[in-house]
Each structure stands twice: as structure tokens, then as C-alpha cells.
């Protein structure tokens, strides 16, 4: 068992007086607004993630997709609106309570965000040293297991700089997995990868969903990956979710920006 904090913890969930979402909804955003100075990035985003599902948020570059998922882990706080994760208001938590919440969420950053002063092994060891009281053997086993899960079991002694972009992303994913999260947020998991690696990473996301029952939200503009991953797709444009449903439903949406997005992609794949 992971022994995160030995301190006594109040068990009362923080709800801020609103009604929490039903039990099977693990993440919910309600009417989230966020502006940076004059720039209004999110203008009322609402989104739900069912337990055990993998959701995809589509949208062009610079539409605020990253901003959206950063709210879920509390890296950003909404100007207005509510962020629910596992029945608690993440936007109202802070300090240790927020950190406890974060431990059940894995986050895969765009470039992997591996600590480049440490080897791959030390990157994961660092997480385990801080958050568990396992013996060295148990830690080594856990690291070997996640490295195997991403099919890179021989990369332990290497430094991040020695890895390719795709490998770095997979190691970043392994590092996110090592603390056994219930939810994983993928920030552009396949951007900048060749089509083979895209498939590898996308299949990996599915495997994690099926084998470990990990719910996930991926943000991407890569339709190939989206087609593999998606249980539920949403399209973010002009700071709002303008279309949602299955990928097919989103594809046939009437919204001009959605049509432009899919039309552009189709024209590209026809070449």
C-alpha cells in the first residue's frame, strides 16, 4: 500500500456547497472560465469523464487545450467555475490536501518533462523515495514493471538526453504510472511522433485503460491517435466545447470550426 502521508487527514470532501457529480463521473469541469490578462482562453467549458473511459479533447493549436487539463491538477485555478475530481473541488483545495489529490492523477507532459539531471531509473526512484516507504527491492520491482509496460525495460541507466522524443514520452508515461494513478492526463501524447510511434503510444493508452482501469483525458489534434483512443470526444474552440459525443458524431458536427478542422485533416490525408 502506498503510504503517502502519515499525518491525520480529515476525510470530509471539499465541495464548496455545490452538488458533487454522480459516483461514476471521476472528473467534471463545470462552466470553467480562465483569462490571462486580456486574453480569455476558456469561456465556460463543461466536460465530464466517466470512470474507466478514455476521453479526448480535440482542437486546433492555441485553443486552450493545455490550459484546460492544467485546471484538473490544480496547476491553474479557474477564474470562475468548478473543477471536480473524485468528488472533490480541486479548485478549492490547497497545500497537502491538493497534493494528496494530485497523487491519484498522473500527468504526461508534452516533452515528457523528465528531470534531465537524473537517469531514467533515478527519475522514477525520486518519485518513489518521496511518496512510499518501500524497500529498495520493492522500488526496483515497481520501476522494472512500469518500464516493461512501456516496452523500454533496458533504458533504466540512460539519461533523458540520450533518448528519442517518442521514448522520452513513454518514459514520462512510465514515471506517471509508477505511483499507480487512477486518472492520467495526456498532453499531446502523440504530437511530433512518427506514425508507428503514434500507434504504439495510442495502443499503450488503451492497454492502460483496459488492464489497469485508468481513466484518462487526452488532448490532441492528431486524428490518427484520437481514432484509436477515443471513448468520448469533445471539440474545444473559442473557449467552449462546441461539439461532443463519439468521434463520428463530432466529425459530423455542423460547427464551422469543427468542419474546418476535420476537412483540413482529410485533405491532408488524401495527399
Amino acid at each position, binding site marked *: 500500500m502506498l503510504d*503517502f502521508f502519515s499525518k491525520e487527514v480529515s476525510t470530509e470532501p471539499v465541495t464548496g456547497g455545490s452538488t458533487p457529480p454522480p459516483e461514476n463521473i471521476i472528473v467534471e469541469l463545470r462552466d470553467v472560465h480562465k483569462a490571462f490578462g486580456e486574453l480569455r482562453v476558456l469561456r465556460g467549458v463543461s466536460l465530464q469523464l466517466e470512470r474507466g473511459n478514455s476521453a479526448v479533447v480535440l482542437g486546433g493549436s492555441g485553443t486552450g487545450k493545455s490550459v484546460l487539463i*492544467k485546471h484538473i*491538477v490544480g*496547476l491553474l485555478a479557474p477564474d470562475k467555475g468548478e473543477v471536480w475530481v473524485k468528488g472533490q473541488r480541486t479548485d478549492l483545495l490547497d497545500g497537502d490536501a491538493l*497534493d*494528496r489529490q*494530485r*497523487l491519484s*492523477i498522473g*500527468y504526461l*507532459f*508534452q*516533452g515528457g*518533462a*523528465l*528531470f*534531465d539531471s537524473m537517469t531514467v531509473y533515478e527519475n522514477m526512484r*525520486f*518519485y518513489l523515495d*518521496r*511518496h512510499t516507504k518501500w524497500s529498495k527491492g520493492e522500488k526496483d520491482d515497481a520501476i522494472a514493471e512500469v518500464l516493461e509496460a512501456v516496452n523500454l525495460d533496458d533504458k533504466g541507466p540512460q539519461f533523458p538526453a540520450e533518448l528519442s522524443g517518442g521514448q522520452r514520452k513513454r518514459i514520462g508515461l512510465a514515471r506517471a504510472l509508477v*505511483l499507480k494513478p487512477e486518472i492520467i492526463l495526456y498532453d499531446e501524447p502523440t504530437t511530433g511522433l512518427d506514425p508507428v510511434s503514434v500507434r504504439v503510444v495510442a495502443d499503450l493508452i488503451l492497454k492502460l485503460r483496459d488492464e489497469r482501469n485508468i481513466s484518462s483525458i487526452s488532448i490532441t489534434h492528431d486524428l490518427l491517435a484520437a481514432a484509436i483512443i477515443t471513448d468520448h470526444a469533445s471539440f474545444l474552440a473559442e473557449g467552449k466545447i462546441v461539439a461532443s459525443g463519439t468521434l463520428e458524431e463530432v466529425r459530423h458536427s455542423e460547427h464551422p470550426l469543427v468542419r474546418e478542422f476535420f476537412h483540413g485533416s482529410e485533405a491532408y490525408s488524401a495527399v
Partner: protein
Amino acid sequence: MEPFLSETDSDTPRDSLSRRLRDVRRVRQEGKILQDKSFSERTMERLLRSQGVLYHFLDQAGALFMFVGEFFRRFWRRPFEVKETINQMDEVGSKSFLLTSVVGLSIGVVLAMQSRGTLARFGAEAFLPSMLSFSIIKEIGPVLTSLVLAGRLGAGIAAELGSMKVTEQIDALEVAALKPFHYLVVTRVIACVVMFPVMTILTDVIALSGGFIESALSTDMDYRVFVGEAFKTMRFVDVTVDTMKTSIFGFIVGIVSCYLGYNVRGGTREVGQAAMQAVVLSSLLILLADVVVVRVSLMIFGDVSGQ
């Protein structure tokens, strides 16, 4: 703009000309309300609106003070990153030692060579050791060590934290509940505060040795005479206060560099700028703080003449 054209008012004139007249009148009225604001309010507004140098300066200074406040709120709380602090001390101390010792040695030798002639003209050559020890221990040693370290560490810290920021490594620490502020900022600042005085003492010793070597070579001075002369009128408080003031300089270097690195936005260009600004700003603040510290210490402890 919307309300001007709203059609919901019952007495809204129908024709466009009178409507436009009404709008003009309303806009003028609002302009007048704006003018009715007090002078200070208007100045404040103008200040906030303008993106001028002063605004930028106040904005930055405020953010820096917030960062300092954050440091004092957190550094005495768990988790204590002892191992990482020792790593950073190693970085500040042993890895900077070659640089500071070379600076110290050359300053000692050069100071001795330069002062000898001047003192000889007054027939005061015997005061050379004493003059050396005072100028080195009280001013040149602490300030020069701090400035050299500010150059080495300021750039290093700001660039390291800056690139961690732009590659999202700091966010990754935050998201994994690893408290990056403790791990990155507190450790570095504490390492600087502790190690700056240590490095200063070493530099002082090496600089005085340099001075002695010069004296020994040019006048065959015995080391007992040199040491005896050098510390004859030196008080304990002279050594301690002027050495410990480098802790303040260390704090300045640590906190300024961490602040600039931690708040980098953008890409590699901004990282480079942060590194440069860290060196410039911490050097300036060191010199400024020196003036204040010396003034205060003179008020409390008096000067060597006993006043």
C-alpha cells in the same frame, strides 16, 4: 457599447438622428463622470494602464517581494530536503573554490604590490600587513567573493531553473506533489546563505597569504611579524560582522536568481535573459546592501578607532 443601441427603453426615439444625439450626450456625460474622479485615482489609473518603465519596475519588485515572503513562509516547514541542500552547498562551495581562491590570491598579491610604494612614501611601510588585513577582511574579501559567486551561481541557478520551467519539469514536480519550491528554491537559498561566509573566510585567508608571499619575496618579512602586525588592531567584531554580512549577500544571490529562473516564461531566449538579469540584479543589490550593512554596523559597533 451594447446598451447605447438597446431598443428596450420605452422612450427610445425611433429616428436614427435623435438616437445618435442621445448617444453622444450620454457618452459626454460618462466622460464627465470620469473627470470627477479624484486626482490620485486618476493618476493611479493612468499608472496602471501605462506599460511604462515605472509600472514594470513596481510590478517586478512586488513579485520579487512576494517570492521572498513565500520563502519565509515555507523554509521552516516540511519537507526538509537535507540531501539536496548538501548537494547545493557542494555546488556553491567546493565547486566554486578554485575560482574564489584564484581571485583571492591575485587580489592579495596585487594589493600588497600597489600599496607598498604609497606607504613607503610616508615611511609607513610597516603598516602594510595591517592595511592589507583591514582592506581584505572588512571589504574586499566579502564583496569580491560575493560578486564572483553572484556571477557564477546567479547565472547557473537562473539558467537551470529557467530551463526546468520551460521544459515543464517544475510543473511535473508540482503535479507529482514533490513540492518544487522546497526542492529547488529553499535548498539553493539556504546553501548560499550558509556557504557565502565560508567561502569568504577562505578567500580572506588566501588573499592574506598572497599579501604575505609578496612581502616575503620583496622584503624578507617573517611570517610572525606579518601575522602579528596584521591582527594587532583588528577586533573580533570586525571579522565576524564583515564575514557574516556575506550571508545577506548569499541570500540576495539565491533568492534573486531563483525568482528569475522560476518565473521564466517562453523559451531559450528568456532563459538566457533570466541568467543575465540574475547576475546584474544580484550584483547591484549586493553593492547596495553592502552600503546599508556597513552603515548599520558602524552605528552599532563603532569603527576601529573605538568611536
